[in-house]
């Protein structure tokens, strides 16, 4: 089921052991998992051109084969409102180790989830859904199921979360679109099954969910050894 383009991305990433963010987003897009409008800008000019096309505000994120966790090195700049701020961010990124440009993407909003996958030694591909964002390992509010997922699995995973009311509506917060979230999780599950043991783990974190739908803001794909 994997297209040649898809295979090419995985093959190119193999020596590094993980798929860099712009390739990971492209791969997810090919698999039908919703991703934002984005561009991989290698120069300041390309960054400004992409932002103009996407429309401000944008988020800029460093691309480097040496940086797996971008937040740890201040490699993510959300809410960039104009070209000047974008140019400043790009300059800063260019001094980070292994710099290969930046992802410029539309700003997303909504509740932050993590959707992940792992090739488990005992159970094969498993999928995780939880409350996401930077503090994901602080809250540790997640549920795991063996893939492939059925729609009822997604429902029970969400019901298991301590923070489920953040998704189903709470004190003026509107409920997120659970139908779209379920669709997204099922598409992701198909992708994970197709990748099999070629992956070690995947983080889609955060996935922004709103009443309109769900979109993957950041993706990290670690390949299996």
């Amino acid at each position: 089921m994997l297209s040649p383009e898809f295979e090419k991305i995985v093959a190119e990433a193999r020596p590094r052991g993980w798929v860099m963010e712009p390739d990971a987003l492209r791969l997810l897009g090919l698999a039908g998992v919703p991703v934002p409008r984005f561009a991989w800008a290698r120069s300041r000019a390309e960054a400004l051109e992409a932002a103009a096309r996407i429309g401000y505000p944008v988020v800029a994120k460093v691309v480097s084969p040496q940086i797996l966790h971008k937040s740890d090195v201040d490699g993510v700049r959300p809410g960039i409102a104009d070209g000047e701020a974008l140019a400043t961010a790009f300059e800063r990124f260019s001094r980070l180790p292994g710099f290969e440009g930046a992802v410029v993407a539309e700003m997303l909003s909504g509740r932050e989830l993590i959707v992940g996958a792992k090739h488990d030694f005992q159970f094969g591909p498993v999928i995780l859904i939880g409350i996401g964002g930077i503090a994901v390992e602080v809250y540790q509010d997640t549920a795991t199921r063996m893939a492939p997922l059925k729609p009822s699995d997604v429902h029970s995973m969400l019901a298991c979360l301590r923070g489920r009311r953040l998704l189903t509506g709470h004190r003026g917060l509107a409920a997120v679109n659970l139908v779209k979230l379920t669709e997204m999780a099922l598409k992701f599950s198909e992708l994970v099954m197709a990748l099999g043991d070629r992956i070690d783990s995947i983080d889609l974190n955060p996935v922004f969910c709103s009443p309109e739908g769900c979109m993957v803001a950041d993706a990290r794909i670690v390949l299996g050894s």
Partner: protein
Amino acid sequence: MDFRPLFKPETIAVAGVSLSNEGHPANVIYNKIHLRYPVKVYPVNPKGGSFKRDRVYRSVEEIPGPVDLAVIAVRADLVPEILAQCIRRKVGAAVIISGGFAEVGRSDLQDRITAMARAAEFPFIGPNCLGIYAPGQFDTFFLPGERLVRPNPGHVGFVSQSGGVLVDQMVKFTQQGLGLSLAVSIGNKALIRELDLLRHLAEDPETRVIAFYVEGFGRNEGRAFVELAAAIPKPVVVLKAGKTTEGSRAVSSHTASLAGDYRVFSDVLAQHGIVEARSEFELTCFCESLSHYPRGIDGNVGIITVSGGHGAIASDICADLGLRVPRMPEAVKAELRAGLSANIRDIASLENPIDLTGSAVDEDFLAALNVLSHAAEIDSVLLLLLPYSPGISSDLGARLSYVHQQNGKPLVAYVPHVEKYRILIEGFELNRVPVASSIDGAAYMVEAMRRCRPC
């Protein structure tokens, strides 16, 4: 592979019986089978001679007539030769008690015997195990009978990676009055593994609940296990050890860190309606409950008590577990009130928990249980029976069981387990209603049914 000679042997050879060391494991096994079980047993030792006035055979091949099972308790390096004899001799199966294989780094020796057995389609349990306990038929434990607590024949099939846990669990089962259909310590599980025994016990007519103590599965083996367990109609209970060994390797993603080995194990079991027990106590309660009530429930509990305090404690435990104790609608309360005797009608509390007070008599319990058995708001009844209450007769256990049998809604009872209440307890148990010796035990028995439903 045919497991019949393994679990229902009529003739057993014990290899390794010592002519000089009465405490040798093979001697313990030979003695107990010889003296206490309805099975023909032959001692085997290359030296030959006689042992307790019986002929000692120099090899399995010397034994006249068919041999169903060989119990092998010799030094590890001698096992391949004995196994080869068994295969040549067309013995049906073996239990390899001997240690000294993969657990001490001798994977080569273990792989060698496994390959021999696989090529000959010869089933064996072990090595490095206690083997089989089949109540009333035979056992291969090298522990003297008088040291063991021996559960009666019953309906729980139990498979354990650890022999020690198995023997200890037999104590817990016996204390709960819970019987075994078969117990197997699989040790290094070189050939026969959890999945094979799950398949076997699924087909075994005596087994109603299948329980496992698991330390870990092999690559992708967990997937096959949960898929099979979900497909069979019998409840499967798993106690997993090694919950806290995660984080030993560096992880590169949040998912790998959050979905540690145990989290995945626990969530995947729940996904497939396999009941995870988190302690020996839970395992015992769950097996007791599910051997009576093999179907899942949503977990809406009706509680009947004669003490407000007991009702409150039970409600708290239920809430902690995720069970619900729903309020009773007016119609149900009216029906309850109408059934009660005049002297408690106005003092009983008819919310859930239903507190019949210390003045209640047998007929009040029967009436209340009858109403709850039909109430659509609840799918299970937890009865807290305190026999020091003077209106309770010794027949009440049996009489309540008959009410339960009328419509089948799961009923579990708590009765303090002291000798003078034995007649009440047996009144329930002999009529197939499980009885717990503590309030939390009773709540776990209800919880077992809730965990039985895929989540």
